[in-house]
């Protein structure tokens, strides 16, 4: 049985920081899905992703945490902001729920799925395997260019095609 660490010891403060990160993640996600305006929704998304990056840091992966902030906060959120500015929705029209029933149905589905997955995860007895390496950045680099090199190439092609396709689709219908 693990004893509870003192709140003001190093372990206790680490636990407090983790709880703060979890709270940031959940609150950001709720803002992203509930705010009236899309700009606030994107701001909530950014807050949520910063929290997720903190959670990754607690999972021994500072590299993935950094990539999370770089790619999601730095690129995806900014792209969504650009789209909101280009396809500006009329402020007069509410962007709220799409029907009288969608709120309760959505909440019911979400609560059912979350509770189901959580109970499933807690009840299952997960087998822990022996670690064969330390998961450091060096090992990630080596495996990315040896075992996973085909996937690496494929994802590069997917990104290239996505960029070209986005340009073609967004440009179509414009004069000149």
């Amino acid at each position, binding site marked *: *049985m*693990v004893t*509870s660490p003192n709140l003001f010891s190093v*372990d206790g403060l*680490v*636990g407090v920081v983790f*709880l703060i990160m*979890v709270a940031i993640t959940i609150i950001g*996600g*709720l803002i992203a*899905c509930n705010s009236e305006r*899309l700009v606030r*929704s994107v701001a909530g998304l950014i807050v*949520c992703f910063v929290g*997720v990056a903190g*959670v*990754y840091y607690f*999972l021994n*992966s500072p590299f*993935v945490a950094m*990539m*999370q902030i770089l*790619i999601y906060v730095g690129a*995806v959120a900014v792209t*969504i902001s*650009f*789209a909101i500015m*280009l*396809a500006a*929705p009329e402020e007069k029209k509410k*962007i*709220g729920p799409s029907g009288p029933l*969608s709120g309760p149905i*959505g909440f019911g*589905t*979400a*609560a059912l*799925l*979350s509770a189901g*997955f*959580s109970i499933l*995860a*807690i009840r299952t007895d*997960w*087998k*822990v*395997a022996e*670690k064969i*390496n330390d*998961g450091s950045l060096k090992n990630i680099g080596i*495996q*990315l260019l040896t075992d996973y090199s085909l*996937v690496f190439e494929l994802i590069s092609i997917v*990104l290239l095609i*996505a*960029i070209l396709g*986005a*340009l073609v*689709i*967004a440009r179509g219908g414009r004069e000149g």
Partner: protein
Amino acid sequence: MSVLTLYNNLNTFLVIGALLFGIGIYGIVTRRTLIGMLIAAELILAGSSVNFMAFNRFTAPDPVVGQVFTLFIMAVAAAEAAIGLSIIIAVYRQLKSIDAEDAVQLKG
């Protein structure tokens, strides 16, 4: 086990992932605009990434696999966001609206 040692427990991270997934599902069902749905889809992808990273840290024999998988999820999410947003801009140019209920031209 106390609240302050939760970060050393696999179940905590699985519950966080499930909550993010649920919030994303709620957003997809209730949102009216296409951009709002896209934002909710990003939340679902974040939830699945948290799950992969949690198993990677606690149970997987090779702790590289989950990180590589999460990186690929990020790349696919970026591609999805780029394509989705350009489609939304094209729809907006055609219909002057990003409301999902207005894009019904294929309706018979």
